[in-house]
């Protein structure tokens, strides 16, 4: 394993020090491992708190700022944070209007955020939880822990964050977050696994001519293993999985996220985006807005995830609202 780190056990602390130094508009509590906006929450504004295992940067810390999250709680690499972190975060950003927890649907995150919600409510903080589960590679059924939360997290945090900034109530912000999640679908393909500092070697080994299809963002193997094929075919399959699950009809509008998993050149992401856009174009589906780049990563995994979110003018206006975070910035 070769990494630009000092010590596998210090990765998260060292990175937090760098985040603190790089982003004056954020404030980092290294002891409790909480990243908040430097500015206090406006009284009466609903606060958004998210978090999860580290290794997905810029998610979540890179989305803290005006118009998006109020706080992020980074856990160890690929390990959900502990309830104490979310409690500290909720206490420090609650503006009296309550706190929305944005939680990716993984057993660890669900359990830890769940305990944190109880603790926060005991402290008199109103908490609503929005569960993100957009990954269609996982069949949602009694046979699994349910769909994973992946790329849609960015859409939920941006749009719900904008609603909160506009003064929406706790129930409204949570409702919008849930609507965005319900309107979103994702699918990911990996060309390589990734290596956590602790494990020191890849989660799985892929031959030079094979890819993992339907992977998550934790280096776990995917739904199946296939031979590498032209991007056109790989994207066609991923889009089919998404569109089978959520058919889109002519004239509908979507947000598109073509997301690099960490080690994929932007040049390739643009090739993927080109294929996505011609598939949608052929169906008469309009790409209202899009992002191409690394937003929800899996350490040094090479691969791509595609996320679509069906939007209407209301959600689009919230998407376009000003945002000022390390990873997303416009309108300011």
């Amino acid at each position: 394993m070769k990494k630009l780190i000092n010590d596998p056990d210090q990765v998260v602390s060292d990175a937090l020090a760098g985040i603190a130094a790089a982003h004056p508009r954020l404030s980092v509590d290294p002891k409790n491992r909480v990243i908040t906006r430097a500015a206090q929450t406006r009284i009466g504004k609903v606060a958004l708190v998210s978090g999860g295992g580290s290794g997905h940067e810029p998610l979540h810390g890179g989305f803290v700022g005006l118009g998006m999250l109020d706080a992020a709680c980074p856990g160890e690499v690929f390990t959900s944070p502990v309830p104490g972190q979310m409690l500290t975060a909720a206490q420090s950003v609650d503006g009296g209007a309550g706190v929305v927890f944005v939680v990716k649907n993984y057993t660890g995150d669900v359990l830890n955020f769940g305990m944190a919600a109880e603790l926060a409510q005991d402290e008199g903080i109103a908490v609503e939880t929005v569960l993100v589960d957009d990954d269609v590679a996982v069949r949602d059924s009694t046979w699994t822990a349910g769909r994973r939360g992946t790329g849609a997290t960015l859409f939920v945090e941006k749009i719900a964050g904008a609603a909160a900034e506009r003064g929406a109530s706790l129930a409204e912000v949570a409702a919008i977050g849930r609507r965005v999640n319900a309107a979103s679908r994702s699918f990911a393909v990996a060309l390589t696994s990734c290596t956590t500092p602790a494990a020191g070697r890849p989660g799985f080994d892929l031959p030079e001519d094979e890819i993992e299809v339907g992977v998550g963002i934790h280096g776990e193997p995917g739904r199946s293993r296939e031979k590498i094929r032209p991007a056109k075919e790989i994207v066609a399959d991923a889009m089919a999985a998404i569109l089978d699950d959520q058919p889109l009809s002519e004239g509908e509008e979507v947000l598109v996220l073509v997301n690099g998993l960490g080690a994929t050149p932007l040049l390739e992401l643009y090739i993927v985006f080109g294929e996505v856009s011609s598939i949608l174009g052929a169906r008469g589906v309009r790409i209202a807005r899009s992002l191409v780049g690394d937003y929800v990563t899996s350490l040094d995994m090479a691969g791509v995830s595609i996320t679509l979110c069906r939007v209407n003018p209301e959600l689009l206006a919230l998407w376009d609202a000003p945002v000022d975070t390390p990873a997303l910035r416009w309108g300011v």
Partner: protein
Amino acid sequence: MPEVLEAAAARDWMLESAASVARERGRLTELDAAIGDGDHGTNLQRGFTAVVAALGGFDPPTPGAVLVKAGTTLISSVGGASGPLYGSALRAVGKALDLPAADGKQLLAALAAGRDALQRLGGAVAGDKTMVDVWIPAVAEFDFALAGGASLPGAAASAAGAAGRGAEDTVPLQARKGRASYLGPRSIGHQDPGATSSALLFRALAVVLGREPG
């Protein structure tokens, strides 16, 4: 050999668990890398290191207090799925041991409470390829041994054996809970990391209760 579990033995159980987690860290992480995300060994090592620190200089009158403290510490230091699950289980075991010394029946009831807390929180049932697949047979065997007249150490030893077999028996199962469930049929053929670490905890209990007092 002790016929009751006292606070000192409860502490020894946690220290022995910490030691064996440290020994098996690599294996636990490898098992998790195969069907999960490769952090189970690191998670538990971090957690039990915190438990050892928390128990240092803490000596309460009851075994329950020790285990509640250990569980709370795991919840606040592990994260992941296993932190809340083990934390809640140990807290439940501890809450049922709110007395200076627990005999076999009392310990059995406490372990059963831990198993139930685990299932309540995680929603897993037998055969889902999780820790539960160790807790259920281990507690049942503990019960069976006592009923058969076994001593406390003897029951703990039998439970540890059942726990080990329970962990091995997760190999052919398809996971229906936790990360491994994402793999669907591809989760078959691998031993569940959490079941494996649970077996370590039952083994640690047997080791501690099996010691000559001294």
